[in-house]
């Protein structure tokens, strides 16, 4: 589903150019869930942004469901995201001026689906927020907002779901709920999940864990025993 070949990311700073990602190559199979773990500033969010097509690689190749992302311009990447990718963010990233249901409808509407509202209602029920569908984000708790975000991420039944610290802004009780919801929906829809976190407990729920350290993908942890789904065959290595 995802294949990277020697991708790097270099940024220009006032003190010259800085390579924030060392050449990275790895593969993620369809339906697999992987966690990218690492300390703050290790480059894990940068890697996520490259994998999701939110940013461009400096060198190397990325294939997302076979599409050569590294050759795409912003417009093509946007289309690809709309077709195949779902997102969950630490800060929820809901549009404040739209209600819960309208936020959930957004990806379906952008994709031009005519039954956006029906789908949104259904999935909001699924995440347990049917009764709050007409509330605005700032009228919802953090946990509820993240559930809306999850509903939004899954409405288009994406092939790949990227989650950036999905429980980072939540308390323990809400975190557990969100994690369960995330993995349940993931299993149900058969989405490939790429999760960035520094929460080792969360990471352990994924099939595989990749460790980022100072821009290098240095370690591959075998999949946690309690995780279900197909056993991954992919490898990841840093150079």
């Amino acid at each position, binding site marked *: 589903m995802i294949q990277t070949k020697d991708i790097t990311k270099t940024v220009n700073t006032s003190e010259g150019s800085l390579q924030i990602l060392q050449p990275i190559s790895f593969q993620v199979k369809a339906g697999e869930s992987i966690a990218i773990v690492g300390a703050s500033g290790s480059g894990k969010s940068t890697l996520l942004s490259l994998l999701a097509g939110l940013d461009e690689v400096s060198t190397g190749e990325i294939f997302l469901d076979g599409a050569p992302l590294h050759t795409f311009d*912003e417009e093509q990447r*946007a289309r690809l*995201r*709309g077709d195949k990718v779902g997102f969950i963010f630490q800060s929820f990233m809901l549009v404040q001026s739209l209600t819960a249901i309208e936020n959930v409808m957004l990806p379906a509407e952008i994709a031009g689906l005519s039954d956006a509202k029906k789908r949104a209602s259904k999935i909001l029920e699924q995440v347990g927020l049917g009764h709050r569908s007409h509330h*605005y984000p700032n009228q919802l708790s953090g946990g509820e907002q993240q559930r809306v975000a999850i509903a939004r991420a899954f409405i288009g039944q994406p092939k790949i779901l990227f989650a950036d610290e999905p429980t980072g802004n939540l308390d323990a009780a809400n975190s557990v709920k969100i994690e369960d919801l995330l993995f349940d929906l993931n299993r149900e829809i058969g989405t490939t999940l790429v999760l960035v976190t520094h929460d080792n407990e969360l990471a352990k729920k994924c099939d595989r864990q990749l460790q980022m350290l100072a821009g290098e993908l240095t370690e591959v942890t075998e999949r946690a025993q309690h995780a279900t789904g197909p056993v991954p065959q992919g490898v990841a290595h840093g150079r």
Partner: protein
Amino acid sequence: MVVNLAWRLFKHEARRGELTIILFAIILSVASVLSLSLFSERLQSALVERSSQFIAADSQLRSRKPISEDWLSQAQAQGLATARQVSTRSMAFGESLMSLVDLRAVSDTYPLKGEIKVADQPFGSPTPVASTPAPGEIWIDSRLFQLLDVKLGSTVYIGDGEFTVKRVLSEIPDQGFSIFNTDPMVLMALSDLPATNITGPGSRVSYKAYYTGSDASIEEYYEWLRPQLDEELHRWEEVGDDESAIGRSIARAERYFLLASLLAIVLAAVAIAVAAQRYSQRHFDPVAIFKTLGATKQMIRRVYVLQILFITVLGITVGIIAGVIIQQLVVIALAGQVDVSLDVWHWRPVFIAVLTGSICAVLFSLYPLLRLFSVPPLRVLRRDMGAGLSSKGLQFGASGGAIFLLMWIYSRDVEISAILFGSGALLVVALLFVTFGLIAVGRWLGQGAMGAWQLAWARIRRRAMDNSVQLISFSITIMLLLVVLVMRNDMVAQWRAQLPENTPNYFMSNITESQKDDLEQHFADQQVRIDEFYPVVRGRFVAVNDEQVSTEVTKEDDPEQSEGRQGLGREANLTWSNKLQTENRIVAGQWHADWQPPGDDGNAEAGIVYPVSVESGVAKRLNIAMDDTLTFNVGSEIVRTRVTSIREVNWQTMQPNFFFVLHPDAMQNFNATYITSFHLDAQRKSEITALMLPFASVTLFDVDARINQLRDIIDQVSLAVEFILVLVLIAGSLVLFAQVQASMDERQQELAILRTLGAKGRLIRFSVINEFLIIGSVAGLMAAMANEFSLFLLQWRVFDMEASMHWEYWLIAPTVGALVVGVLGALGCYRLLRLNTGQLLRKMV
């Protein structure tokens, strides 16, 4: 889908108050432009209507030859109403006495505007009459009853005609006003004129055709007529051409309305620019989210352009309604005070308001929108990422260009637009310098323990670029308000100065040298103060540099002179004085007070060339330059003069003014008569007959009616100007408020952090208030400077006024600026500080 999404965003944002500021700015721009221009258009047409009474029509064609019947038929064919008048000076004979009269023969449609007024008895109170003299009858001036010793019903002979005196003529609309050789007026039917045989070859006759109709049809007719006119013979005059005091006051008021409306547009534009910038910044996150979720640039562009369209349409609609209501309120408020109908509806202001709203909404949101479109999707992960596009040059260029375009379209006057725009641009540049100066000062002042002042300075320094934009918008707003305010004060003050309380309301002429002292004494005994005596000698103006002056350059045969302007022609009124009159200003050469006659070499007397001072307008018209020799024939003598100075004369004062002022030596051998003026209180009017009794030969002119008319108009125009000022002030205050609101949002995050860190409300409040005080006072000071600059240009170039400095505003503007901006800041801050930290932080999300 795009429309749905855009509509949904618009609906929710409107409901949640997210669009309030930008919507409010558009409403404000449309409402203020509409109400101002609707009101000024209505007032202008009402004033034009009123001033058209002074020329008895909308337009007038004056000619020294009979006006072709074809020209009048053509006018009628084009839908214009017409009237005619033929005027000349002639002798009128009673049974035993005779007098020179100012004869006016008019068609029965005369006057097209204004009224003829008659009285029951000589010097009786005037009442309007709807008719004109019937064939065979004449209406005559009160004075003529004495001069010819006639009564109503008596017979008077003019030329070969014989007429019955039917009414006492008090006033005709376009009689003009001149205190020199004004003969008593006689009004007769035009059809009677040929029978008198007085307009034969050689007689000096003036012909007038009057026209009324719509502006467009008059314009069309004039286009047809113009090629047939002969500059030497014909003169086309429209209401706007009125060079009189009233005409100039109205012209100035019109320019003021234009200025105020222009400034309202700029104010609205500033408000929209501020609001659009804020709108754009608040949508960085949604755009990043849309992009992340797969929206293409085109889709986002459509969503936001549609949003702007919805906002614009709503803003314009509400703005139009609000504008009409405001305007109607003004009309109701003014109804009792302005003696003109304000009911005529005009479409142009509506068109202008819609255009303004649209141009403002589109052009001022262009840059913020372009910035918005350039927000990268990566912002969802890296919250510090702003818009990809950032170009102050593009921002200032686009908004500056839009403002200039708006001004130009609206005023159709490049000069007034360029002046306002230029001073605004200069202000922006100056402010950028000041901002960076402030940063330097702030670095120094912001050191030390963190008190409210240090916090304020630190914030100003940190947000230098944001503050510079804010400072510029505050300064421009304050400057525009100052321009409108100070301009109004100067203008009204100058108008009032023309007619101070004791403005002379009577003029006397034909006073002989021997009567002078007695007259002065007699008036002093009655507690009436007489103004200066001006000697007058009638002279023939015969040559310039020894070249004969042809009659064509003179106005002698034109019995009507505009108000305050005395006759010039082959017969000129010459005066002499060592002292330069007040309201006269030398523009070239030197006043002749110090002139000494050349040494006495026996026969020098005849050859002396005396100095003369010439009025600048007549110098231009007759092509007279400094050092030219002008020759006058006074009595049987030749007086040679050399132009030693050229004077600019303020014709708007009610005082005698002269085209030619000679050195007293030049006139010592001639017998002069004198003219003077005095003021008599309204309640003493009944004493006038007794006052004048001992001086039967002195001619008296009562100009009270004229002065009251002028005063009325000036009062009404001043009142209107005041209303406009209030409207602009309200608009400006609202803009300031919008600016403070917008900048308050930007401060929200910082307030939340300070609050979270445990800063006391008092410290935060004072630091914010101090910050606004600093910004307000700097903006005020900058505005005062820019105001001075633009006022100087405006008064000099546009308003034809004497420019002056306004030092008081250099103190007032920073003080008021600091206070207003400080108070608004405090209010905005109070709102934020009432929220608890949790609410504050949530608002930031």
